[in-house]
């Protein structure tokens, strides 16, 4: 049981979940933006930022080959010359990685050859976060263009769009209901121009099929940076710029709620 972390201290680290012991250290030339294990847990990928003259790269290491770790030599390193990668997730079977870029593009990179298998240009501005559904068949992308979009993981077909009036920082798909949750707000530096009233920043719930908002949860007094559903779908958590992580458990009415159809 391992944990993979990437940081702006120019390194990606592997840890043992039970003991907390660091198992591997991979140094990079620039900040590590996003990382993840494939379905088997044997291959890791992470992306580095375009910084200080260094390009953005998407690197792949096979954990079964200790030589790669020791030499800090990924078996595959894909350069991204234009817009850097801002968020990425693995496909359902570890064959490819779906990456979101600074310009709103989503590219599907093969984990074997490194070539781009599919492209999707649906968002107009930076993609802030990508999260998969629990079965990895689809993912939701949260973007600065005030929308979140649902895509099929394999075909990159654009399925649904959820519209708001503020940039969306993070979105997640419920494991048990046809719901998605989104959190956002404003750029940290623009916060003073928006409402400074207590609890104005809300997590918003949309129906995945109808694309309609059906609920909001107030509480954060700063922009929400990250949202996630509990794997059992009975609660969700949100973390915000205000320095708080909030965990909410759903009332029974949440599971019975239905929009008239």
């Amino acid at each position, binding site marked *: 049981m391992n944990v993979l972390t990437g940081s702006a201290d120019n390194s990606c680290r592997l840890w043992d979940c039970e003991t907390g012991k660091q198992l591997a250290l991979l140094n990079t030339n620039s900040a590590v933006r996003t990382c993840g294990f494939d*379905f*088997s*847990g044997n291959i890791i990928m992470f992306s580095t930022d375009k910084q200080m003259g260094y390009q953005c790269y998407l690197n792949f290491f096979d954990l079964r080959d200790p030589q790669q770790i020791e030499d800090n030599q990924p078996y595959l390193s894909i350069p991204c010359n234009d817009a850097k990668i801002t968020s990425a997730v693995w496909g*359902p*079977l*570890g064959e490819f990685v779906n990456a979101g870029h600074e310009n709103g593009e989503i590219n599907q990179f093969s984990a074997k050859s490194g070539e781009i298998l599919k492209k999707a240009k649906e968002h107009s501005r930076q993609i802030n976060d990508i999260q998969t559904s629990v*079965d990895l*068949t*689809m993912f939701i992308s949260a973007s600065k263009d005030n929308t979140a979009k649902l895509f*099929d993981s*394999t075909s990159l077909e654009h*399925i*649904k769009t959820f519209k708001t*009036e*503020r940039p969306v920082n993070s979105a997640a798909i419920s494991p048990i209901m*046809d719901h998605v949750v989104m959190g956002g707000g*404003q750029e940290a530096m*623009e916060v003073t*121009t*928006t*409402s400074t009233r207590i609890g104005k920043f809300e997590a918003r719930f949309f129906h*995945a*099929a*109808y*694309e*309609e908002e059906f609920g909001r949860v107030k509480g954060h007094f700063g922009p929400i940076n990250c949202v996630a559903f509990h*794997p*059992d779908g009975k609660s969700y958590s949100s973390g915000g710029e205000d320095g708080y992580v909030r965990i909410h458990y759903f009332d029974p009415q949440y599971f019975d709620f239905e*929009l*008239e*159809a």
Partner: protein
Amino acid sequence: FNPNWSRQMTILQESRSAPGFCLLKGSFSFHCHQVFAPGGFCYVSVNWSKSLVSTNSILMLPLYFLVCLFFVCVFVFAELLLDILREKPQEADGIDSVVVVDNVPQVGPERLEKLKNVIHKIFSKFGKITTEFYPEADGMTKGYIFLEYAAPTQALEAVKNADGYKLDKQHTFRVNLFTDFDKYMTISDEWETPEKQPFKDFGNMRHWIEDPDCRDQYSVIYEAGERTAIFSNDAKEPITAEERARWTETYVRWSPKGTYLATFHQRGIALWGGEKFKQIQRFSHQGVSLIDFSPCERYVVTFSPLMDTKEDPQAIIIWDILTGQKKRGFHCESSAHWPIFKWSHDGKFFARMTQDTLSIYETPSMGLLDKKSLKISGIKDFSWSPGDNIIAFWVPEDKDIPARVTLMQLPSRQEIRVRNLFNVVDCKLHWQRNGDYLCVKVDRTPKGTQGVVTNFEIFRMREKQVPVDVVEMKDSIIAFAWEPNGSKFAVLHGESPRINASFYHVKNNGKIELIKMFDKQQANSIFWSPQGQFMVLAGLRSMNGALAFVDTSDCTMMNIAEHYMASDVEWDPTGRYVVTSVSWWSHKVDNAYWLWTFQGRLLQKNNKDRFCQLLWRPRPPTLLSTDQIKMIKKDLKKYSKIFEQKDRLSQSKASKELVDKRRAMMEEYRRYRETAQQIYQEQKSIRLELRGGVDTDELDSNVDDWEEETIEFFINEEIIPLGDL
């Protein structure tokens, strides 16, 4: 593109071997191209820097700078020289500086000297008279004279100011330029009928009024001005009537009766109308920044700070809308108090105020009423009655003459009421919308005090002798507004956070009664419904968009709400709906407009990317007579039933539509999920393989692997005394 370019290029290249020389050559071409071929300029720069580098000498840089400076100076000097040359006094070739004065008294030789003195006194105001000629016949002057000035500009001044000068009862001077006679004499006797213009049929210009559901239209500017759209207002959601990119360059204006939409462009304004918003008319006025319509929609006034010359006034132009003709141009020093020209309610007159003068013009001649302006020493402000051709104006205190407000009837110029005011600091004129009342807000410093108090002087226009009643206010006034169609007014007074809203009723018996006062209000603006009775008190901008909906028939607060950071409030022309909006021009986020009912019930929230402005399309005055309106009000119950039924039908239609839409979306989504699930099941074996045979598809797939452990830990200790045992 300069054809000599290639030749000069080769010269540059050839002289590269001589760096110093190249420097001078380069800079000369540099300037040449700046003036003649801007395209070539860029290219020269590139080559220029290349040759700099090739000279390999940094010492050249200051020299280069000095040379450039030299050439810049030469050009600037040349410009100045040209300016001076232009103003050089020209030797008059005579004719341009001569004026002819008619209607001069015919006198004999004994009174000639006196006449000449009088003429001289009057006409030397405009310049130096170099020659004068008094033609005679039979021992008397003929009745017209010739005067020559030192310069043609002086002659023009004389014509402008002395023409129409009343010397006495029988003699009013007519002054003309000598050259004008020539000009008018050479006009051909042949009359050419003007060419008949083909009739441009713009269709039904009142098409929007005929909407069967009586929806009003409004214009919306969004995307920071890039897009303008016209919507029909429906309670459910706005219906797009028209949407265009770059329709206007700055903002838009509706004409007073809603017939035209005016858009602004660098070269002038355009008017659009009819069912499809075709272009009706175009007015060319370079750099136009402000416009105003006459209330009858016959004329439009445009202002541009750019084009104005002494001979041909172009700052303000009045146009005839139907023909597109320029009717008259005026000078304008500053546009600070637009509109400079104020129209009478029927469009018969328009007036403007300049230093100590009130100039009233009449239409359609565009000439001064009675051929002269009114001299009103010290006039500070004036305003037309919205119901009659009456002007109200006020002058401040002058030595021992108190300040006063005067009501003047036009065109007779009869002063129908004068009111003296004492210790006045400032006055503001507020007319009630029908012209039934005038409120003059007077700020005074009473004798012996330092502070400023405010009185409202209420003039009852419909009563004989126009009686005036006074309402004294103790706090400072933030806002004042008359009820349109009614006899109430609302005042916001006090200082934040103790702002009060007071409602007064001007009764028939001469009393002005305070109906109600609400205290501790978050409001800085008053918005009455155009039909009266209802109003919104709003705290805009810095007060964060607090809204209060009031019914003034019994002064109750119907609803208190908020539109955070609202910058504007606009009632629709029927008084049924209110729009509050957050404009991108005042706040860069959350730009949207919200639709409320007149009772304060929120109906819609419309977000628009970088929303800037919403303006309701005005309605023309009703064609119904007062009797017909009475009849309709009597039968209102009958009509209500029909409307309610219609509403119910459309509501259920809407819900049915929504339900159908949702059903379709769900079916589509289900189908997609089923296909995805199928593929997922087919891939199960691959997943098992990837995870070494462990099934992780469900949370409880490998529940045998789970260990359950119960842990207890200490939270809190509470000691409860049980009393004496």
